[in-house]
């Protein structure tokens, strides 16, 4: 899922400026599961903003609403009335949600309440860890299901580097060396010989280096489209 964390209240307050009617919009998908921008967090942030602005002497009207997914037009349609009433929209979605709101409500000013961090998973309650870099050309089939692009600090394809020390990355003792993990996993599965095959340089054009990406599925398009 997409992992995000909330911005500091002072930064959010600065983004809101002098707008008096604020609509905090939560998202019911990824950021709900990572406790950053679901209905509970939207309610907490709305209450925090009401309290802090009242204490600062410029009390704002802050309401909150949560949609199932901010990144789909159909769900955004459901809050059109509340959006109309607001001076400013504060999205607790990921960066995609914020942009979807901006695109769907072109006459409204929208600001982000979260910093979108990475694609990952909760390794335990309260701890999230990066797992995917969305590189566009998955190589997990070569590495035993452990991604060296996302989990190696250098995204090496034929690692490890000299900075791997006792299973940890030289960047931080808190980061396990992805290539140590790959070696250990392939060893335990009796497939370590796979590592003898050298990987050629990766085609990064399928990642962000090729510019913004887009996927079109002709089989899913609706209605008549010109070729």
């Amino acid at each position, binding site marked *: 899922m997409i992992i995000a964390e909330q911005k500091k209240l*002072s930064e959010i307050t600065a983004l809101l400026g002098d707008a008096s009617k604020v609509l905090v919009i939560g998202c019911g998908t990824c950021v709900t599961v990572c406790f950053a921008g679901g209905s*509970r967090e939207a*309610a*907490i942030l709305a*209450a*925090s903003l009401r*309290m802090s602005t*009242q*204490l600062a002497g410029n009390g704002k009207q802050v309401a909150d609403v949560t949609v199932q997914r901010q990144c789909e037009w159909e769900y955004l349609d459901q809050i059109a009335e509340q959006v109309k009433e607001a001076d400013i929209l504060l999205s607790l979605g990921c960066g995609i949600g914020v942009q979807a709101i901006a695109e769907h409500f072109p006459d409204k000013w929208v600001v982000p309440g979260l910093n979108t961090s990475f694609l990952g998973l909760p390794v335990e309650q309260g701890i999230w860890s990066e797992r995917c870099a969305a590189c566009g050309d998955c190589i997990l089939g070569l590495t035993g299901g452990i991604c060296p692009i996302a989990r190696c600090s250098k995204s090496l394809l034929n690692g490890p580097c000299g900075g791997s020390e006792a299973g940890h990355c030289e960047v931080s003792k808190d980061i396990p060396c992805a290539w140590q993990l790959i070696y250990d996993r392939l060893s335990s599965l009796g497939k370590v010989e796979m590592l003898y095959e050298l990987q050629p340089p990766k085609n990064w054009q399928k990642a962000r280096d090729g510019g913004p990406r887009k996927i079109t599925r002709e089989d899913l398009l609706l209605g008549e489209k010109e070729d």
Partner: protein
Amino acid sequence: MSDSSSANHPPLSILAYCCEHCAYAAADLAGSLRMQYPPNIRIVRLPCTGKIDVLIILQALEDGADGVMVAGCLPGDCHFLEGNVNAKRRVKHIRNLLGEIGLEPERVRMYQLSSAMAGEFVRISEEMTREIEKLGPNPLKKNQR
């Protein structure tokens, strides 16, 4: 009433979220023993302090409670193993959040006691009341504005 009622503001109200396995029973025992504790304390019974949520405390303060105390079991004695530990962590989090909001973090406190500690319940109620009196009424109280 405590001296908070004598000033020109209404009596302080302090919400006490009490675990039914310890603090709530201790308050009950204090009553049975005819022990006095400040009338500002309004008890809300919880099945465990692990039930407490940041939003519940925030809403209490936004609605004008002057202070909130969360009273759970002694370390290692939680009926649900670790609810009191989790509550302690959340209270710490909300105190940080109150700092960001601009409201005194000291308005929220966590206490730990057992069901037999009626005297301790009286003591923490008095301590909480004293501390909140020092801070004065919640500036968010609607009837103050």
